[in-house]
C-alpha cells in the first residue's frame, strides 16, 4: 500500500489490520471504518484528512485507544491492543499518548500548573517532582509566567500551548492532535503547528486530524479518508 508497509515491522509504531468499526444508528449500521489496513512509522507526522463522516474522528479515537474496533486488529508497538480491557487501555494512554484537542479541554477549575501536572498525578509522581516538571514544560511552551493562572484567563493560543505542555508531561510516544488549530486564528494556529513540527523533529510521532489542507501541509504524510476507507496517501516525510 505504501512505503511503510515494506520497511519492516520494527519501525512501526501503529499498525491496523482490516480495522472495522460499525456504529448502530437507529436501525441503520454505519461503517465508520470499513476495513482499513495501514501502518505508521515511529517518528512520522501524519495528517488524517477527509470530509465530515469520512471516519477520521473514529480513526483518531481507535488509534488513541479511546474506542474499540468492531473487528480487525490494532497493533501498537508490536502489542495487539484490540482485545485489551478498559484498565489496560487507560494505562496505555497514560504511558504512551498525549492528546491535544480543538477545544483545548483544559480543566477550568485547575491552574495551568495543575493542568500540566494531571498526567503526572495519575502516573503517581509526588507533588515536588510534578511541580518541577510542570515548570520545565511551561518554559518550553513559553508560559512560565502563567503557571498560577486559570485557563479562563488565557488566550486561545496560550490555552493550546498549555494543552501541549500537558500532552508532553508523560514523555509520550505519540501525540494525537484533533483539529489543534480549529479554534485559533491563522497566526496563532501557525505558531501551534510550528510547535508540533518541532516536537516531530525531536522524534515524537504525531497524528493530527484536520480538514484544512494548508494545515495538513505541515505534516510529512497525509492520509485522505472517504466513507471509512483510505482514499489516498500523500507525502513521504
Amino acid at each position, binding site marked *: 500500500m505504501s512505503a511503510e508497509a515494506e520497511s519492516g515491522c520494527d519501525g512501526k509504531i501503529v499498525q491496523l489490520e482490516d480495522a472495522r468499526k460499525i456504529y448502530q444508528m437507529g436501525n441503520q449500521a454505519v461503517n465508520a471504518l470499513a476495513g482499513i489496513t495501514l501502518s505508521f512509522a515511529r517518528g512520522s507526522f501524519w495528517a488524517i484528512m477527509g470530509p465530515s463522516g469520512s471516519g477520521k474522528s473514529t480513526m483518531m479515537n481507535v488509534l488513541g485507544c479511546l474506542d474499540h474496533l468492531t473487528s480487525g486488529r490494532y497493533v501498537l508497538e508490536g502489542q495487539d491492543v484490540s482485545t485489551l480491557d478498559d*484498565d489496560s487501555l487507560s494505562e496505555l494512554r497514560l504511558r504512551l499518548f498525549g492528546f491535544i484537542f480543538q477545544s483545548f479541554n483544559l480543566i477550568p*477549575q485547575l491552574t495551568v500548573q495543575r493542568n500540566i501536572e494531571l*498526567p503526572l498525578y495519575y502516573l503517581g509522581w509526588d507533588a515536588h517532582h510534578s511541580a518541577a516538571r510542570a515548570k520545565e514544560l511551561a518554559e518550553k511552551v513559553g508560559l512560565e509566567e502563567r503557571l498560577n493562572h486559570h485557563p479562563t484567563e488565557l488566550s486561545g493560543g496560550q490555552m493550546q500551548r498549555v494543552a501541549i505542555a500537558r500532552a508532553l508531561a508523560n514523555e509520550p510516544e505519540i501525540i494525537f492532535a484533533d483539529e489543534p488549530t480549529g479554534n485559533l486564528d491563522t497566526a496563532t494556529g501557525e505558531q501551534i503547528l510550528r510547535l508540533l513540527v518541532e516536537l516531530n523533529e525531536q522524534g515524537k510521532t504525531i497524528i493530527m486530524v484536520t480538514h484544512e489542507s494548508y494545515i495538513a501541509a505541515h505534516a510529512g504524510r497525509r492520509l485522505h479518508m472517504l466513507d471509512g476507507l483510505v482514499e489516498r496517501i500523500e507525502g513521504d516525510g
Partner: protein
Amino acid sequence: MHQIKIVRNILLGIENLLLHKLRSLLTTLGIVFGVGSVVAMLSVGEGASKEAMDQIRKLGSNNIIVSAIKSIDDEAASTTHSHMSIYGLTYEDHVRVAESFDTIRQTAPVKLVRKEGRLRERALELRIVGTTPEWFELVRRPVLAGRVLLESDEEDQLAVAVLTEFGARRLLAAESTIGQSLRLGSDYFEVVGIVKSESGQAGNIQIPDEQIDAYIPIGVARKYFGDITTRRTAGTREREMVDLHQIIVQVGSIDDVEPTAAGIENMLGNFHKKKDYLVSVPLALLRQAEATKRTFNIVLGSIAGISLLVGGIGIMNIMLASVTERTQEIGIRRAIGAKRRQIIGQFLIETVVLSIIGGLIGIGLGVLVPFMITYFAGMATVITVGSIVLPLVISFGVGIIFGLYPAVRAANVDPIVALRHE
C-alpha cells in the same frame, strides 16, 4: 507511599470542594443537622436515663422493698376528725416474711421516727431509722468513721446511733464526735459511727436512707419512742400507730426477685384487712427504665435515620449534578489515562469528605446544644464517646453509600462523548 497518596487525594478533594464553598456548605447542611440532632438527643436521653438508673441501682437490684402506706379509708378519716390510724407493717409481718421464703437471704425492718437531734449546741431535725445491723449490708454505705450497728447493740438494748455524713456535718460532728452524746428527743444516744450519705428518689420508691438519718437499734427505737406518733397540724391532732415503716428484703439471686415479691404481696394480703402496704421491686423499675430507654432509642434512631437519609439524598443529588457539570473534566481525565476506579475514588472521596465535614460540624453543634440545655434548663446531659463516634461513623457511611452511585456514573462517562461536550 500509599498513605501519602490517600492524604493527597483527600486534600485534592477538599480543594475541589472549596472551589464551591457555598454549594458545599449547603449540600452538607442536611448531614450537619442530622448528626447534630443525633448527638444532642443521645446526650439528653443518656443523661435522663443515667439519672434514673443511678437512683434505681441505689435501691439494689436484688432487693424488694415493702413499705407501709396509709390506706385510702384512713386518709379520708384522718382529715375529718381527731383519729388514731393504725396501719402499716407489723413486727409479725417482718418475722413472717423473713421465715416464709427460702429465697430470701436477709431482711431489715425499718422504723422511722422524726425527732430533733441535738449535739452540743447544734440542733437538727433528724429522721431516726430504727433498724437491725442487716440494714447496712442491704444498702452498703461506706463507713467513714467508727462502726455501724451490731447485733450486740440490739441484744443489750444499747442507746447508740450511727449518723450519716451529711447530718453529721450539719451537727458539726467529726471523727472526734464518736463516743459523744447525741440527744434525740429527750434521750441521749452515744454516736458510734458515721456512714456516707446517699440521697434521692427513684420513681415512687423512697430510697431507704436520707441525708439526715440517724440509725439506732430497732428495739431501742421501739422502747424509747414507742409505736405511736402524734402530729399536730392546723388545730387537729393526728395520731398514728405504725409498727414498721419498711421491710427491706434481699433475695439470693435476681431470678428470685419477682416470684418472691409476688409471694410477699400474696402473704401480706392474707393478714391485712386493708391495703396498707406496698411491695415495690427496684428491679422492675430498672427493667421498665431500660425498656423506656430502648423505646426512646428506637424512636430517636428512626428520626436520626430519616434525617441522615434526607441529608444523604441531598448530597447524592448535588453530586449527580456535579458529575453532569464536570462531564468534560471526567472525559479529559479518562483520555489522559485515569482508570475508572480512580474516577470513582475521586468522586467518592469528595462525597465522603463532604459528609464527614458535615458530621464534624454537626457534632460541634450537637455538643453545644446539650451544654446549653444543662446550663439553661438544668437538665442532666451526658456526652459519651459513643454518641460522638457513632454519628461520625454514620456520616462516613452516608458518604460512601450516597457517593457511590454518582461516582460510578462519573466513571462510566464515555470519554469520546465527554470530549465532544462543550
